[in-house]
């Protein structure tokens, strides 16, 4: 009886171990090699999945013996970050190649989860010929190495409904020069077109990084000397007047009821409401958003709106009081990155080059509305054919800023979201929220010596 039991125990343990460790053996049962690619998908955002499905076919045709496993994560960006971080906890569950937001790159470099690509990039002619230097920096680690090949880049600014502005008696094309111009326009819309929402921006925690970047940083970097990080002293800036001013703008929007209702401000699907409900029905005046919004209206979208080219206008977000250079933009983007745990490094890199080649890069940029990172795509008439706004968004690169995407940045961003949400709901005044940020900052960035008091 006893040996039998001991035997079954052993068997059980063995089974359990096999079950735990069976994650991503590079050799599948048939002896073929398998590469796992992780990416995000939403019912309203099938674009990346479409492009990767194409890339999979091309790659498998060119690389017999290797199977590509596409693993989607259903959900918004925040859900994707969490899922990726958890999968990356163990080499057994980590995907070989993944779609990665550039602001997360340095934290993962510090954790040793990403493989540097420099050796492979040196042998890939496209890297030097097609990727502009500014774009190459997108996924540069603190050690100067490159950890991802850009699949998209972007700029940010204002979209507005010509119908709503005309009804409010505002000039079209509309060209605000200061924050005050924007607020005045919003107030005019509120007064003259009461059934339209005057102004929309992302300002709550549920929108995560979108709130920080499209919302807060578009304001902060438009103030005189406004920045999150002092490059000269290599310290994080603790609040200050710039910070309070940016929060005051948000506070004004919500206290004067110039923004969406609270339930919409907290709705994870706010972008869908803006792009598919409010703008087409002329229920929204101005939206602070990014280049990619046009992806929602194009023929490749799940709900195209061909009239957008005539009904909408676009203009840069002005600086606070019209300070030079008069406009502000933020740029980020996503890359295809390689796991440091993958045993098939060359194969993984080969897939990255397929996913970011001209054809696939084109498919992705045209359907998402993101800006193309490759010169040959940007120069191709197909890229700008159906999108009259693309030149405007591309030109914003001349005034754009990049996030201080250091390892601590995601945590700093989370603190900014706390401050923004507190101001959005009215739980705190801009001054209180700034003070709370300044107080929390040292523990977030690793000590008071890394903080610059303002």
């Amino acid at each position, binding site marked *: *009886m*006893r040996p039998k*039991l001991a035997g*079954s*125990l052993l068997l*059980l*343990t063995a089974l*359990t171990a096999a079950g735990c460790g069976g994650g991503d053996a590079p050799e599948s049962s048939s002896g073929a090699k398998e590469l796992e690619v992780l990416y995000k998908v939403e019912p309203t955002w099938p674009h990346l999945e479409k492009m990767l499905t194409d890339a999979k076919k091309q790659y498998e045709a060119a690389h017999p013996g290797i199977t590509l496993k596409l693993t989607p994560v259903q959900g918004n960006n*925040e859900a994707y*970050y*969490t899922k990726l*971080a*958890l999968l*990356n*906890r163990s080499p057994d569950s980590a995907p070989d190649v993944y779609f990665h937001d550039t602001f*997360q790159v340095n*934290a*993962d470099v*510090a*954790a*040793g*989860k990403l493989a540097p690509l420099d050796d492979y990039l040196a042998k890939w002619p496209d890297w030097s010929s097609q990727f502009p230097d500014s774009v190459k920096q997108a996924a540069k680690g603190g050690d100067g190495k490159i950890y991802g090949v850009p699949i998209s880049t972007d700029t940010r600014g204002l979209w507005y409904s010509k119908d709503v502005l005309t009804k409010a008696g505002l000039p079209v094309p509309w060209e605000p020069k200061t924050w005050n111009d924007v607020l005045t326009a919003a107030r005019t819309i509120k007064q003259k077109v009461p059934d339209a929402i005057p102004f929309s921006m992302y300002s*709550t*925690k*549920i929108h*995560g990084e979108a709130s920080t970047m499209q919302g807060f940083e578009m304001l902060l970097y438009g103030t005189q000397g406004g920045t999150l990080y002092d490059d000269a002293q290599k310290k994080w800036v603790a609040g200050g007047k710039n910070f309070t001013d940016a929060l005051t703008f948000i506070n004004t929007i919500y206290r004067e009821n110039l923004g969406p*209702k*609270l*339930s919409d401000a*907290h709705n994870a699907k706010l972008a869908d409401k803006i792009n598919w409900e409010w703008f087409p029905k002329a229920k929204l005046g101005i939206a602070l958003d990014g280049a990619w919004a046009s992806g929602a209206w194009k023929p490749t979208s799940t709900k195209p709106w061909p009239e957008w080219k005539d009904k909408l206008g676009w203009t840069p977000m002005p600086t606070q009081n019209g300070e030079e250079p008069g406009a502000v933009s933020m740029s980020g983007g996503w890359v295809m990155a390689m796991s440091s745990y993958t045993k098939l490094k060359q194969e993984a890199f080969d897939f990255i080059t397929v996913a970011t080649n001209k054809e696939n890069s084109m498919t992705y940029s045209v359907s998402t509305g993101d800006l193309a990172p490759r010169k040959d795509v940007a120069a191709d008439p197909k890229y700008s054919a159906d999108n009259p706004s693309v030149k405007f968004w591309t030109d914003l690169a001349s005034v754009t800023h990049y996030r201080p995407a250091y*390892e*601590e940045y*995601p*945590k700093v961003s*989370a603190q900014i979201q706390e401050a923004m*949400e*507190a101001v*959005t*709901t009215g*739980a705190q005044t801009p001054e209180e929220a700034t003070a709370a940020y300044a107080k929390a900052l040292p*523990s977030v960035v690793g000590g008071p010596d890394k903080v610059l008091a303002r």
Partner: protein
Amino acid sequence: MTVATAPSPSVTGSPAGGPSRRRRVLRWLLPLGPALVLLAIFLAGPILWSVYIAFTNETLTGSASVNSQFVGVANFVKLFGDPNFINSFLLTFIFVIGSAVIGQNTLGLIIALLMRGRGRVTRSVVNGVVIAAWVMPEVVAAACWFSFLAEDGTLNTVLGVSQEWLYTAPMLAVILANVWRGTAFSMLVYSAALSEVPADLVEAAAVDGASPARRLLHITLPLIRRSIMANLMLITLQTLASFGLIYALTGGGPGTASQTTPLYMYEQAFRYFEIGYGSAIALVMLVIGALFSLVYLRLIKTEDA
């Protein structure tokens, strides 16, 4: 079976524990073995690990994820000075008292009392309705309440008003939703307990002229007091850990207006990747749950004495 024929002098206790005693231990330990091993690996293991990382600065990514350091009680010091935690703790308290101790418990008892001696049809209909809410998965229940309370939802349509209930009264919304969902459990416990109350005792009291209220207060309730305590303990623990319902309904918002401790823990651990800090919060919750159970168990014991 042959083993059982061995004489057992050890009943009186051989102090050193002879071979037969060891054999007897083995006889119950061996069949339990696989289960114990599994429990150790999948239950005790993760618990011990999370207790350990609660004392480190472990994160899900970044440099602290590869060389996390033991930071002693730093997480707990930070926790008790964290206004967001204090806020979440108060909200959890309101949530437990409001939805479990007052809501589910009282409503469950009232329904059970009213159902006594009713016709079979009434009983099955009421039982069916109440239990339907209970068997519903949390997320589905949350979706129902969301469409009920949403701005263009059922409630506003019926009342003819335009109120953003989930933003103006988020705690009330999640408390009501949890009462609605969880009442069935208390109702079932009390229905069972009430069926054990001897009818002749209640009748005798009625003959003696005791009013229905007096009969309830002095006969029925004292007789089911142990069920009350057990029920309170179970629903308190359940509600203390409730996550899905609130997460799906309000996400803890607006701001932190309905962010109970489990939601705060999730946010810290899995959105901000502070898994060490998140585990510290989990540990504190575990202790609070244990304290609650101790109090209830104590009360049950005193009742027995």
